[in-house]
């Protein structure tokens, strides 16, 4: 698969979804993950549910999962902050095995980020006790399967951060 500027081809992520029989993606697009939009919305096996505000994603995903659909949430890290009470009261309290794909705004591989969104992201996940993995390129995409397995084995949400060099 060809790399894009971020070194991560959306088809690598879609392949992981298919491997894990993910049928629904609840998504509010953001700057870090918009490179996946065309691929995700045009796949016939994947239903993308767009929302108006990020916290809706957690509750919609919970309903889909209760209804037997394998579902992934995709939002930016800022949207995860906004979703705090839904993560607490739904994903964590219900022990939902839910994969949170998170666009890592402000992330830098080297140096010091100037974006507070990046600074607080991992602190936030630590404080909720949510395990997380970082994906930067196609060779990391297998971590999606690992995260899904971990979420199901431990009955809790797990996060995968989609890192792009901030510019």
């Amino acid at each position, binding site marked *: 698969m060809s790399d894009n500027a971020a070194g991560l081809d959306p088809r690598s992520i879609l392949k992981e979804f298919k491997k894990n029989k993910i049928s*629904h993606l609840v998504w509010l697009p953001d700057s870090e993950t918009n490179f996946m939009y065309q691929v995700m919305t045009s796949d016939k096996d994947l239903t993308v549910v767009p929302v108006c*505000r990020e*916290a809706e994603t957690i509750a919609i995903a919970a*309903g*889909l*999962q*209760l*209804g037997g659909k394998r579902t992934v949430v995709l939002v930016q890290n800022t949207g995860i902050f906004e979703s705090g009470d839904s993560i607490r009261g*739904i994903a964590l309290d219900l022990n939902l095995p839910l994969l949170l794909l998170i666009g890592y705004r402000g992330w830098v591989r080297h140096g010091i980020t100037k974006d507070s969104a990046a600074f607080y992201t991992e602190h936030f996940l630590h404080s909720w006790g949510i395990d997380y993995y970082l994906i930067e390129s196609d060779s990391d995409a297998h971590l999606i399967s690992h995260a899904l397995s971990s979420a199901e084995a431990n009955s809790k949400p797990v996060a995968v951060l989609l890192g792009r060099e901030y510019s």
Partner: protein
Amino acid sequence: MVVPTMQSNRRWSLVSSRPDLDLPLTGCMGKASSMALGLALAQPKTRVIVIDGDGSLLMNLGTFVTIGEQAPANLIHVSFDNGVYATTGGQPVPGSHRVDFAAYAKSSGYRSSHQFEHLEDFISSIEDLFSAEGPVFINLKIQEDLDDLSADERMAMPSLVKNYPAMKDLFAS
């Protein structure tokens, strides 16, 4: 299946004939309708009713547009509109008395949207409303009727956290 929230959790539990199919959601800033949407999309042959309130709707106003966009035919969205935060002691909900929730739902894409101010009118329409193709929105203007519950009584209220373990395999394939 019924998804009540906040004060409706206790009230609905007093009349529900199938508590095993109830998903009472507490808190979470007005997300009952969002959870109901997910369930309705996952199980299109199951009728899903969400019992919302004006305070909860205003915390998650985008839900109208998200539901209207998906337009699940099996979703009925009811709101008890009393103008106050009943759960926290009856403080007024900002702007609730002038917001037209039914118009908001209609312009967001619900197949039909209704408001009732008299019980008799609602009762005479109820069969048609609940058998109509969704999403249907029903705003019920009601007088405030506060529960004076102790902290222990609040904690004992029906909750999804208590119901969920028994429900999570309901639709498992």
